[in-house]
């Protein structure tokens, strides 16, 4: 089974702190994604990556950056956390080599609170 893990289930940070959210997948997937999930807004794409060292902005990249130094790991960085970044963060991965090619496998999520 595909496994996508996220470094923390719950995280509390202070305004202005630099925050790292880590995601690791064990299926050699090329594509990795970071979403945030908020009530009434659904899942919104922050950043995604097609391969190592590559990154693309999603729909709401402002205030975030990402790093993909290894194929299995995709990090989301909040350079200076703000209260409006309090949210559930979901990581996902997929591979164009898999059957339909586009199914995304999700991690359990990290609930981040910025105070």
């Amino acid at each position, binding site marked *: 089974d595909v496994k996508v893990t996220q470094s923390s289930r719950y995280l509390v940070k202070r305004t202005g702190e630099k925050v790292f959210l880590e995601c690791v997948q064990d299926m050699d997937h090329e594509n990795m994604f970071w979403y945030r999930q908020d009530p009434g807004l659904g899942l919104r794409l922050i950043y995604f990556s097609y391969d190592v060292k590559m990154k693309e902005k999603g729909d709401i990249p402002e205030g975030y950056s990402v790093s993909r130094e290894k194929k299995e790991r995709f990090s989301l960085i909040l350079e200076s956390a703000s209260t409006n970044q309090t949210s559930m963060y979901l990581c996902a991965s997929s591979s164009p080599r898999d059957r339909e090619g586009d199914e995304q496998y999700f991690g359990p*999520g990290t609930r981040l609170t910025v105070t």
Partner: protein
Amino acid sequence: GESVGLHLPTLSVQEGDNSIINCAYSNSASDYFIWYKQESGKGPQFIIDIRSNMDKRQGQRVTVLLNKTVKHLSLQIAATQPGDSAVYFCAENKRNQGGKLIFGQGTELSVKP
């Protein structure tokens, strides 16, 4: 702009009844759709998918129907069980953009015993 949305935010059904969860999409060029289930405290899990060259696809106790004329998608769950209680999302898959997904806001399904 394009969007994927769901008709109802909540749905309550009796255990054993059939459930129907609806989704509307606005991009007529979309060619691939996915339904996800998200249980409390977990990430979304794939349920079933369908391509635009199909009208219907069946899985185990689930059926997805696609009506391209009115750009409508539905998920039917037969003999709904308490374990089906979750939030259900439809998503449009932008295949020509590297597998990006656009999600609807979700419908919360509650199953009454």
